[in-house]
């Protein structure tokens, strides 16, 4: 194989910038994720992580820059959540993955319903698949939670389980987990981390966004630090220990603070 050929990527962003009016949310973002790579995206509140996620999942377009998915350029103007889904990108949001008052079978298929020709839902089929995912993939058993249950009846961990199970069912090539362990019990965090390990074993890619450095360190192959709308560091896991990473981030934020005071 020729060395000049870059390794295949699941995602590549080139010079992506995003402005809301005159406010700059992201600039000079050059970011890539390998086909079977787990990237930990680290950054403080307001650093621009969510904006980045929303651009690459098609919720809103970037102001400028190029986006490649599976090494193919996508037109950012017409790129939408539906396009992202069809290109194999699934997102698990911290708190806005499920409609609280809606039944599980609706939550599994919202946005890409199985329908008859005129747009009427294939309810029985959706319920059957939702049931299979809940029992086999997520492992809901005899807890009184079924496909008819409302999302509001689920614990935080169960919700993430559903969102993750949904992502797995639709066979994503790249799964984005946005703060998936916030407000979860330790046992539930474990489940989420195990799931990320499964993504890696399954040959898929993942972007894992979290405040918890220990979690990110355990599962990620590479860490990308984002601050004030810019990528400020990228480190391979092999080149840094958890302690060093932690200290680096601390120093970094302190350094910024000091600079801010000057």
């Amino acid at each position, binding site marked *: 194989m020729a060395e000049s050929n870059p390794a295949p990527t699941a995602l590549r962003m080139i010079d992506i910038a995003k402005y809301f009016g005159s406010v700059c949310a992201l600039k000079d973002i050059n970011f890539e994720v390998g086909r079977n790579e787990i990237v930990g995206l680290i950054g403080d509140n307001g650093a621009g992580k969510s904006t980045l996620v929303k651009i690459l*999942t*098609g919720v809103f377009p970037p102001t400028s820059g190029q986006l490649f998915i599976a090494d193919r350029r996508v037109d950012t103007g017409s790129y939408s959540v539906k396009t992202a889904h069809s290109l194999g990108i699934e997102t698990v*949001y911290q708190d806005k*993955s499920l*409609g609280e*008052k*809606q039944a599980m079978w609706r939550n599994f298929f919202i946005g*890409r*319903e199985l329908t008859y020709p005129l747009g009427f*839902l294939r309810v029985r089929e959706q319920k059957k698949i939702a049931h299979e995912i809940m029992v086999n993939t997520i492992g809901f058993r005899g807890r009184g939670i079924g496909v008819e249950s409302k999302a509001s009846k689920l614990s935080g961990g169960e919700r993430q389980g559903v969102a993750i199970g949904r992502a797995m069912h639709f066979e994503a090539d790249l799964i984005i987990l946005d703060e998936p362990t916030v407000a979860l019990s330790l046992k539930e965090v474990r489940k989420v981390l195990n799931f990320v390990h499964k993504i890696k074993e399954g040959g898929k890619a993942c972007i894992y966004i979290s405040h918890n450095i220990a979690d990110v360190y355990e599962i990620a192959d590479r860490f990308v630090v984002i601050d004030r709308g810019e990528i400020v560091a990228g480190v391979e896991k092999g080149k840094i220990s958890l302690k060093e990473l932690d200290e680096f981030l601390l120093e970094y934020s302190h350094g910024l603070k000091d600079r801010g005071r000057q």
Partner: protein
Amino acid sequence: MSRRASLLGVLGRLEGLPVAVVLALLYAVFIFAAPTVFTGYRIYMSFFQTVPPMLVLAIGLTFVITAGEIDLSFPAVVALSGFVFTWCFQTFGVGWPGFLLALLAGALVGWVNGFLVARLRVPSIMATLAAQFFWYGFTILVAGGLQIDIASVISTPVHTIFVGRVFQVFPLQALWSLGLVIFFWFILNRHRFGQAIMFIGDNAEVARVMGIGVEATRIRLFTLNGALAAFAGLLLTLEINVFYPTQGQGMLLPVMAAVFIGGTSIAGGQGVLMGTLFGMYIIGSLEAGVVATGIGGYWVQLVEGLVMAASVILNIVIGDEGLSALAWTARRWAAPSPSPEKEGRGGG
């Protein structure tokens, strides 16, 4: 789960059952208190004649409230559509063009509402309040403030089809409105559009990140509501053979009350169309019923308030769990058990 509880569970899942029970109880009281009126068929035929326009309005409003929005402009559309139909009927001498144009006018008013709400982000209560004044004003202006008599409409096919009488007594509009309830039940509960509306009302941000076109759906929703309000206006105008510029006024609150009595929550995310159906007949029967019992017209509003409060409380007590939750609560009252099961909502 005991078998009895699961039977109640099945019953509880029958949409709108509690409201239907309230309606049945109400009629039982009326039959007891005013037997001469309520054992004959005439009073019911009269309800089937007066309630349908409001029921059609309530279908649309149920959708709007499910989406977490509100529409105050539908009474004005009732007037506008009546005018459009009447004017066309006088001009062309046939019913159909006016019928279609009236529906189109209603849809257009609704589309403008939707555009204001979805694209310009005007809160729906303000956009539709303004629309309500504007379109009433517009209608009064173009009608010159006058009512228009169209007695000859009785012999047109439009009249026969929509507000004719089956066997000389049964008003067809009752069937049309019931048909629309059933049709729109399927749209809300078994169609992509209805599901989008529920998710938007539940949490628009979730809907957006899951790939639903939130703005487009909102515009479609208000357009639909405008067209439904226009149809309600047509039923009303055809039934009474007269257009008057203030028609529809006074329907806002009863229709809204029916939607809430039916169990649709103001919080959005869930719509109970079958509840709306029974709720509309409760509201539509109260006035005549209370008067017929002979306790006097002054009581009407007081009783309406009581029935509405009772229905809404019943819906909250029963909540998501259905009737089995009610049975649970009842059993707990009957025999307080020490087991630390979860709180029934209506208990204590």
